[in-house]
Each structure stands twice: as C-alpha cells, then as structure tokens.
C-alpha cells in the first residue's frame, strides 16, 4: 500500500530547512495527533453512551445520569479530554522552548503525505512551524486545556458528557490543523472543520429547536465566508501555480503588482472569509446566536480560538495585505466599524452571555483594525491577551450560570439563568468568581497594569499613527471610532459586573441560599486566567512607553517581547510597507506622543468605570419576570440589535426560500416537467384525431376508400 504510514508514525517527519538555525522540532505531529486520538477515544465512549440512552428513550423513559456511581463512559472522558490537551500543551511548550533558543528565520515545513496531486497542482499534508504558528499553538492548547478542565466541572451532570468532549477534542484538532497548516488548502480543512465543530457544539442540546437552528445558522454563515476563502485560493493558484504559504509569500512582492487589481481581489476575498469566521460586520450575526451552546464552548470557540482564525489568516498572509492598501483599508474599516457597532448593541443586552458575545465581536473588530493598519504584531498581541481575559469572563459567567442553574433547579422555579436581571448581589456568595471577573473586566476596559491596556492601546496608537500614511483621513476616523468604542467597552463591562455581582439579589430569597461558589475544577482555571490577564500584557511593553511610568520605569521584563518574537514572520510585510507607505508616524492625528495618549486612554477607561459604578448603584433593576422588553427609542433599537437579524431575514432568507419554492413549483414541475408530460399528451391527442375516422360504419370506410382511390388516380394522372 502506498499510504506512507511510516512517516506519520515517526511523527518526526523531515525536519525541513531547520538544521541551519538549530531549531529542531520535537514531535510536532504529536500536537495535532493527540486531540485526534482524544476525539476517537471519546467518540467510542460517546457512541456506547448514546446506544444506552437510546435504548432508555425507546423504552419510553429518559436516561438519567445515575447520581451515585457514574458509568465508565462518563468518567473516562474527564481524563482523556483534558489529559490529551495538557499533553499537547506540554509538547508545544517543549517546541516553544527549543524555538526560543534557536534563531529561526524561515518556517520549518514538515510534509507527511501528498494530499492532492495532479500535473499542475501538488498539495501535501504538511505542518509549518514558525513563530506565528507557535504563538497560536500556545494560545489554543494553553487556554484550551484550561477550558477543558473547566468543562469537567461545568458539564458534569449532562447526559451527553462523552459526546461533549468528543466534539471539543475534534475542535481542537481542527483548530491546530488550521493554525499549523503549511498551505491554504490544509488551512481550509481546519477552517471548515472548526466550522463543523462549532455547528455540532452550538447545537449540542439538539433536542431544543432554537439551539439546533443556531448551529445551522453558524454553519451556513461560515460557509458564505468560506466561499470567499475558496475564491482567493483559486486566484492565488492561477497566479502562483501553487498553494503553499512559503513559496507564495516569498514570490508575492515581485509577482504581484502593489495595489494592483489582482492582489486587492485576493485580499478582499480573504477578508470575506475572515469576516465569516471571525464574525465581522456583514457576517457576524451567527456569533450572538452561538451563545446557545454550553458556556465553555462559547469561551473556547467563540472567544479564544476559532473566531481569531480570521486574524491569524490575515497575519499569516500579511505580505498580501501589505501589497494591497485597498484590502488593508477594508480590513481596518470593517474592524473599526464592527468594534463600535457591536459595542453599541452590548450596552443594552440583559443576557450575560449576549453581552460577552457582542464584546467579543467588538474586540475582534480591534484586532482586525490592528492587522488592517499594518500593525500585525499588535493584532496578534491583542488576540493573545483577549483570549486570556475573554475566556476568563466567559468561564466566570459560566460559573455564575452554573450556580444559578443549581439554585433554580433545587427550588424548581423556571427563571432564565442567564438573565442578569435575575441575578444581583452575587459578590458575597461567589467571591472567587467575583474577583477574577473584576480582573477580566478591568483588563478588557484597558486599565493600566492589565493585559488589555497594553494590547488595545497599542492597536489604537498604531491606528492613529497610521493616520499619517495614505488614506490618512480614513485612519484618523478609525482612530476616533476605536477610542469611542473603548469608552463604551468600559461602560457595558462595568454595567454587567454591577448587575451581576452588586446591589440587591433578585433571584429570590429561597434560591439565594443555594447560590454558592463554583467547585475547584471551575475556579482554578479562573484564577490562572486572571493571572495571565494581569501579567500577559507585560511581554510586549511598547518601546516608547517602556521607561515611562507605564513601563514602571523599565522594571517590566520583556519590552517589545512579542515584536522581536514575530519579527521574522512579519519582516516581509514590513519591508513592503516601508517601501510603499513609509514608517508609522510619531504623533497621533490630534498631536501628542504615544505616552501621552496611553495615559489618556487608561485614565479615560478608569473614569468611565468609576462613573458607571457610581451611577449604576442608583438604578432600580426589576427582575426579568416583571420588567418587559425595552421597546421604544434608542434602547429598544439597540436591544433589538439594530434589527439586523430581521433585515437579513427579509432581504436574504425569505427571498431565497420563496425563489426555491417558485423554482420548484413553477419552473420544475410546471415548465420542464410540463413540457415532458405535454409530449405525452400531444401524441395522445394525435391518436384521438385519428380515431374519429373509425366510426365503425361500413359505408364510411368504403367512402374513405373511394376518396383515397380518387386522390391517388388524380395524382398519378397529373
């Protein structure tokens, strides 16, 4: 058999061009393979559990998870799931340490087997290891393992426990394939694979119609984005004849014309793909609905990893975007617009997960703004820090919802466990969650020492600095939008914290007694993530701020750490940028240096947080049951998400379904089938005409005969 099983088993793979620089990958294939093995193991357990619960349902009842001794199928996944992730994280760490030591200048490509092969196209299933993919691998496996551990606690008493971990492991596998793929098609495999897993996980409780619909919506909207990705790949293939990253990104500067139609088309298609996956303006509608899935899923997929795939893709093909100012402007524009738009919606939401969902869309907008203006490292930096504090916030909200469920379950009252209006005053009852979530909130708001400040501020600064180059007026506008969105972020996050943790408790006296802190498996990840959110920002303190008060007068260890780390990956793009656009400006559009604006932004955020805290304490918040939906005015508009969903429904979904029905009823059954059946009935009609002559009366036949003879003779006589 020509299937080179050998190379896969060895997992070493050819070590590519790495000998020179001494970076010697340590079993890189294992990182990808482990989640796959986890998926297969959990999958088998899930199938067994599924068969047992199916028999129970068929017998008329419902299979309940026995309280006392949990069946094998529900204990093993808690070991396999997180275990596999932690192992993958360990291997990644080893590789990271090795890569840290070696001065790696070009990516290490390790092919395993040829996937597609024709005369003109050759695509191998290959892994590409370089600084960028290493950062992503760290984020995916690191945050992923924490979320897996959290899920053990959160999903403990869900009958579909093994199935949950099957999908989660499969997701991490596809995410790693996406991040470590060495060519666009392999990345695309991961790209749609994560789309599939988000479909499965959002619709995890598939018996509930809305949740299944949300999953379907996510998949279809992602697919719309994937079409863009496909078209970009076709364009790249027709120009370069190959689809691997290394050759394309090397030969891009000389083959593609700067700002030419081709490169703009490619980048715009890639943007469409990224917008689909990272929920940006036109295709963001699926993310808020994706909250229908379990909360750890929202944390992992819809905060930390999957939605950042778009940003990673832009960073990976940074050269193309550098060559296409129009493309980059579009990315930045979409990013800024999404940031502001999503922030406005988040202001009025009452569902805690919806607030966080729109906050994610908004923060992704920032990342897009970052990579759009050419500050790729800033974008990736924000991606990393966002993964930390947004995962923290989501898991925190998960802990809150979990304990709310327990309380309501105990007393049997049917209240929406996710509605903030039913919460309030949880600080005393859930101190750990409360403190860690405050850390996350301050981080996302951009308060000084925390990670959010450094990454978000850097993006805002570069947006402002880029205002100097071409399209200056546009970038200045984006800079202002970014600042406004930052203020809004601070407001809605504080509002969320206050409604959830502060003020009087609105769940009800009896339930309140049952509200207690989340178990250890859930609170430990929270604490760890909180730590990351605090110290995460220090790895990349901007040079200008390093010795000012911001950088504690030089005390912080790794100034510009991430910049140096991602230097080789972004080198090509920055060269192109330097050649065509010139360096970033020193001053923001309204004057003032980086330090000045950094101080301004953190003070602004602090002011907003304090102000909201003061104002919010006087709000009278009625529990969800009494308080109706906000209808009129701006609040109603924002609560109704600017009626975007209804708009999409009217201009896209309904016409498509109507046309389908029309095509089927009228065109297919009517015209095409009509013609086919018509030929049948026409021939029957001719038969009828013929039969009129057959009257059965002898003389008619004789008469027809005579007429025939006469005609024949006449013709012959002529």
């Amino acid at each position, binding site marked *: 058999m020509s299937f080179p099983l050998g190379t896969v088993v060895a997992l070493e793979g050819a070590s590519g061009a790495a000998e020179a620089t001494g970076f010697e990958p340590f079993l890189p294939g294992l990182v990808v393979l482990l989640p796959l093995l986890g998926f297969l193991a959990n999958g088998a357990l899930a199938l067994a559990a599924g068969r047992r619960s199916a028999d129970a349902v068929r017998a008329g009842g419902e299979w309940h998870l026995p309280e006392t001794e949990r069946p094998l199928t529900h204990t093993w996944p808690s070991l396999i799931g997180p275990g596999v992730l932690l192992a993958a994280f360990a291997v990644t760490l080893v590789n990271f340490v090795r890569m840290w030591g070696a001065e790696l200048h070009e990516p290490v490509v390790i092919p395993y087997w040829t996937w597609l092969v024709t005369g003109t196209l050759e695509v191998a299933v290959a892994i590409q290891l370089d600084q960028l993919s290493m950062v992503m691998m760290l984020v995916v496996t690191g945050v992923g393992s924490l979320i897996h551990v959290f899920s053990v606690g959160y999903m403990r008493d869900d009958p579909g426990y093994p199935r949950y971990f099957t999908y989660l492991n499969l997701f991490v596998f596809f995410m790693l394939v996406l991040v470590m793929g060495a060519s666009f098609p392999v990345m695309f495999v991961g790209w749609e694979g994560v789309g599939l897993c988000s479909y499965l996980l959002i619709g995890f409780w598939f018996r509930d119609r809305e949740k299944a619909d949300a999953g379907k919506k996510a998949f279809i909207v992602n697919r719309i984005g994937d079409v863009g990705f496909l078209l970009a790949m076709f364009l790249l293939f027709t120009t370069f004849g190959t689809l691997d990253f290394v050759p394309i990104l090397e030969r891009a500067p000389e083959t593609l014309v700067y700002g030419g139609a081709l490169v703009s088309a490619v980048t715009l298609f890639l943007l469409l793909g990224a917008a689909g996956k990272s929920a940006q303006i036109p295709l963001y509608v699926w993310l808020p609905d994706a909250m229908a899935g379990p909360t750890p899923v929202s944390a992992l997929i819809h905060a930390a990893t999957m939605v950042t795939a778009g940003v990673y893709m832009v960073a990976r093909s940074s050269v193309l975007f550098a060559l296409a100012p129009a493309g980059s402007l579009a990315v930045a524009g979409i990013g800024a617009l999404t940031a502001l738009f999503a922030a406005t919606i988040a202001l009025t939401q009452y569902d805690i997960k919806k607030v966080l969902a729109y906050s994610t869309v908004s923060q992704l907008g920032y990342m897009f703004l970052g990579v759009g203006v050419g500050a790729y490292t800033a974008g990736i930096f924000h991606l990393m820090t966002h993964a930390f504090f947004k995962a923290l916030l989501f898991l925190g909200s998960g802990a809150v919802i979990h304990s709310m469920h327990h309380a309501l379950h105990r007393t049997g009252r049917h209240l929406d466990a996710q509605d903030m209006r039913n919460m309030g005053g949880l600080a005393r009852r859930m101190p750990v969650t409360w403190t860690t979530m405050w850390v996350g909130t301050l981080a996302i708001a951009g308060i000084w020492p925390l990670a959010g400040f450094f990454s978000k501020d850097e993006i805002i600064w570069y947006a402002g600095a880029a205002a100097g180059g071409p399209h200056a007026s546009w970038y200045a506008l984006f800079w202002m939008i970014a600042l406004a969105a930052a203020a809004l972020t601070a407001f809605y996050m504080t509002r969320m914290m206050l409604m959830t943790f502060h003020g009087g408790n609105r769940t009800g006296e009896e339930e309140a007694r049952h509200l207690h802190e989340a178990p250890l498996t859930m609170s430990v990840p929270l604490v760890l993530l909180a730590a990351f959110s605090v110290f995460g920002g220090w790895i990349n303190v901007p040079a200008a701020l390093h010795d000012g008060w911001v950088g504690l007068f030089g005390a912080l260890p790794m100034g510009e750490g991430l910049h140096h780390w991602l230097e080789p990956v972004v080198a090509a793009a920055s060269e192109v940028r330097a050649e065509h656009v010139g360096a970033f400006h020193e001053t923001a559009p309204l004057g003032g240096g980086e330090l000045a604006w950094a101080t301004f932004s953190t003070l602004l955020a602090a002011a907003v947080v304090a102000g909201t805290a003061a104002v919010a304490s006087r709000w009278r918040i009625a529990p969800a049951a009494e308080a109706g939906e906000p209808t009129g005015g701006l609040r109603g508009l924002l609560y109704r998400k600017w009626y975007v969903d209804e708009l999409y429904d009217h201009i896209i979904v309904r016409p498509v379904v109507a046309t389908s029905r029309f095509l089927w009823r009228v065109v297919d059954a009517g015209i095409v089938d009509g013609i086919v059946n018509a030929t049948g009935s026409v021939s029957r009609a001719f038969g009828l005409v013929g039969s009129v002559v057959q*009257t*059965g*009366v*002898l003389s008619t036949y*004789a*008469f027809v005969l*005579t007429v025939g003879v006469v005609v024949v003779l006449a013709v012959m006589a002529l």
Partner: protein
Amino acid sequence: MITDSLVLSALLFVIGTLGVLIRRNAIIMFLCIELMLNAVNLTFVALSRLVGIDGQLFVFFVMTVAAAEAAVGLAIIISIFRHYETVDVQSFNLLKW
C-alpha cells in the same frame, strides 16, 4: 367501339361504387360489388381487342374469383344475419372504439 365500351365499363363501375356507398343492405352492396367486377371484365374484353387473347383469358380468372368471393361473402352475410337478425350494415359496428 372499343372506346365506347371502355366508357360504358367506367360508367358501370361508377354506378357499382355508388351502390356500395349508398345502399345499407349488405346483399345489395354485395351485388354492386359484383357489378363493379363485371364492369372490369368488360374493360378486359374491350382491351383484349388490342392486346390479344390474354385479356379475355384474364376475364376467365376474374369470374372464378368472383364466384368464390360471392360464395364466401354470402356465407358471411348469413352468419351475420343469424347473429344480428338484420343485414343492415349500420348495425355491424362492433369495431367502433
């Protein structure tokens, strides 16, 4: 003389055809057919004046066929009569779809 008799035979033939078309009595129709055959015999004889004896010979065969046909035809009419109790052609419409 020959052309006159040819015209005569054409006339007789036409009258025979007319009889078949108009009459509804099977026997009479049958008679008319015999008349038509006779007209044809006349043409044969007339033309045998030009062609030679073969014409007359052929009449001989036509007559035998006419006899055979008459016999069978009448037998059919009898068996139909036995079934329909009438020889009116209109009532034999078994073939009507």
